[in-house]
C-alpha cells in the first residue's frame, strides 16, 4: 500500500468531478437514444455524428435560457435549492470507490477520494441530504404544483430511506464493515452478494429507483399529474443542475449496487477490474433506462403502500434471517 498524498486525492477529486459531470451529460444522450430504440425510433440524429453533439446543443440552450424567478418565490431558497441537489450528489460520490488504486506520473491515486471507514452510510446520508433540493425548490416557488412535489419528496424520502438502509443492513452484517473498500475486498474471497443476498439486492434496487427519482417512482415531477412537480418554475441552468444531480445520483446508485452486490472492481476472469466495474455500472445504468421504457408510473398511495407494507417487512425479515444464519 502506497502512501496517500494530498496530490493523489486532489487528482481523484478532479477525476470524479470531470468524469461524472461528463458522464452525466452523456447519460442524457444515452437515455434518449435507448428510450428511442426501445420505441423503434432513432433518437437525436442531427447534431453531430449520430447526434452526439446534442449534449453541447442542450448545454448551450440551458446556459443561455432566461434564469426565471417567480415573483412571490422565496428568492434565496429558490436559488440555492438546485445547488443543494448537485453538490450533495457529488459529495456522495467522493466517498465511493469507482476505480481500483492506480499510479499516474508517480503519484498514487487512491480508489476513493475520502476513505472514511463508514463510506456506505456517508453515501446514503448525503443522498438523503440531496432530497432537500427538491423539497426546498418545491416549497419556495409559490406554486401549488411545486408544493405537491415537495410534499411528495418528503413522503418518498422518509419511506424509502428506511428501505435502503434496511436492505443494505444484511450485506453490512455479512461483511462486518461499513467501508466500501472492505465490501470490495469481501468480493475477492466470497461469492457475489447477489447470490447470497438476492432479496436485499431487489429491495435495494427498488429503493434506489425511488431515491434517484427514476421512472416507476418519479412522483416528484410526474408530468401527467403535477406538471413538473418541484421543478415547475425552474428554467435554464438551475433546472439543469437538478438534472445533473439526478444523473450523478443514478451513477452513485449504480456504483453502490455494483460494489456491494455485483463484485465491485475485482478482476473478473480475464477482464481487468477497472473494465469490469465500468461494465457493471453501464449495465445498472442501462437497467434504469430499460425499466423506464417498460413500466408505467405507480400511484402515490400504492407507492407508500409498497414501501411500508411490502418492502420494509421484507427487509426486516431479511435482516433477521441473515442474523440467524450468521450466528449459527
Amino acid at each position: 500500500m502506497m502512501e496517500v498524498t494530498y496530490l493523489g486525492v486532489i487528482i481523484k477529486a478532479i477525476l470524479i468531478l470531470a468524469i461524472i459531470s461528463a458522464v452525466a451529460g452523456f447519460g442524457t444522450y444515452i437515455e434518449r437514444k435507448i428510450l428511442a430504440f426501445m420505441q423503434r425510433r432513432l433518437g437525436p440524429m442531427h447534431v453531430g455524428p449520430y447526434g452526439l453533439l446534442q449534449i453541447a446543443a442542450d448545454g448551450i440552450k440551458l446556459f443561455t435560457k432566461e434564469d426565471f424567478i417567480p415573483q412571490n418565490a422565496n428568492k434565496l431558497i429558490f436559488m440555492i435549492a438546485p445547488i443543494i441537489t448537485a453538490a450533495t450528489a457529488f459529495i456522495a460520490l467522493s466517498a465511493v470507490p469507482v476505480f481500483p488504486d492506480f499510479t499516474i506520473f508517480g503519484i498514487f491515486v487512491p480508489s476513493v477520494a475520502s476513505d472514511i471507514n463508514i463510506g456506505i452510510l456517508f453515501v446514503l446520508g448525503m443522498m438523503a441530504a440531496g432530497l432537500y433540493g427538491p423539497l426546498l425548490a418545491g416549497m419556495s416557488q409559490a406554486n401549488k404544483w411545486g408544493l405537491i412535489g415537495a410534499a411528495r419528496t418528503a413522503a418518498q424520502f422518509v419511506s424509502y430511506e428506511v428501505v435502503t438502509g434496511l436492505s443494505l443492513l444484511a450485506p453490512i452484517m455479512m461483511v462486518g464493515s461499513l467501508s466500501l473498500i472492505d465490501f470490495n475486498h469481501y468480493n475477492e474471497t466470497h461469492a457475489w452478494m447477489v447470490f447470497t443476498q438476492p432479496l436485499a439486492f431487489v429491495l435495494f434496487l427498488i429503493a434506489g429507483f425511488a431515491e434517484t427519482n427514476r421512472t416507476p417512482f418519479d412522483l416528484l415531477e410526474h408530468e401527467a399529474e403535477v406538471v413538473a412537480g418541484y421543478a415547475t418554475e425552474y428554467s435554464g441552468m438551475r433546472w439543469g443542475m437538478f438534472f445533473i444531480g439526478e444523473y450523478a445520483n443514478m451513477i452513485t446508485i449504480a456504483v453502490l449496487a455494483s460494489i456491494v452486490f455485483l463484485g465491485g472492481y475485482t478482476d473478473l476472469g480475464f477482464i481487468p477490474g477497472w473494465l469490469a466495474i465500468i461494465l457493471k455500472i453501464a449495465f445498472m445504468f442501462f437497467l434504469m433506462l430499460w425499466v423506464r421504457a417498460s413500466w408505467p408510473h405507480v400511484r402515490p398511495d400504492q407507492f407508500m403502500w409498497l414501501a411500508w407494507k411490502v418492502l420494509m417487512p421484507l427487509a426486516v425479515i431479511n435482516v433477521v434471517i441473515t442474523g440467524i444464519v450468521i450466528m449459527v
Partner: protein
Amino acid sequence: MSLEQFKNRNVGVQHYRMLDLSHTPQTGWGQFKQVVRRTLSLELFVGLKVTLREMTKALFFGKMHTTKYPFEKLPVGPRYRAIHEMKRLLESGHYRCIGCGLCEKICPADAIRIETAYGEDQRKQVQEYTINFGRCIFCGYCAEVCPELAIVHGGRYETASEQRASFSLFDDMLTPIDRLKEQKEFPGYGSVSPDADKRIHKTPLAY
C-alpha cells in the same frame, strides 16, 4: 332502422380481446394473495422483455420506424385536402378560373380576394387572386362551389412559411406550365371532361 342500430358504427368484424379482469379482492387476506400471485408470476418482466425485443428488432433487423421528416416524406393520399391548387386546362394550358368570384363570395373566413379586369381579348381575366392562409379554415367550400374545377385542394400540407404571401398568390398555386402533364384529373361525377378546353368559353365581361 332503430336508433340503436343507427348509432352502431362498428362496421365489419371486430376482433376485441376481452381482458380477464378478476374483481378487486375485498379482504386483507385476498389482497395479500393477489400481491403474492402477481409478484411470483413475474408479470413485470414481460414488459422488460417486450421493450428489449423491440430494441433488437429496431437495431439489428432494420425495423426502425422513424421517417426523417424534412428529408423524407410519407406519401399523402390522393384525396388529402390541404393547400389550394389552381388548375389549368389540359390542352391549352390556360388557367381554368373564369373569374366568376363565387369562391370569394362563399368563403366563410373571407380569405379569398379576387380582382378581375378586361383582357386584350375583351374577356374577363384574373388580375389578382390571393388566399390568406392565416384565415383559411380549409372548409373546402371554395373548391365545392367552383363551376370550373379551377380551385381544388392539393396535397401540400406544410403550412409553415416565412411569409404568408409565399404560397397564397395566384401564380404560386397555379400548376406550373411545364408540369401540366403531371396535373392529375380524377374521373367521376363532376369531373372535367377531356375536351373541356373546347367547350369552355370565356365569360364575356358585359353582364
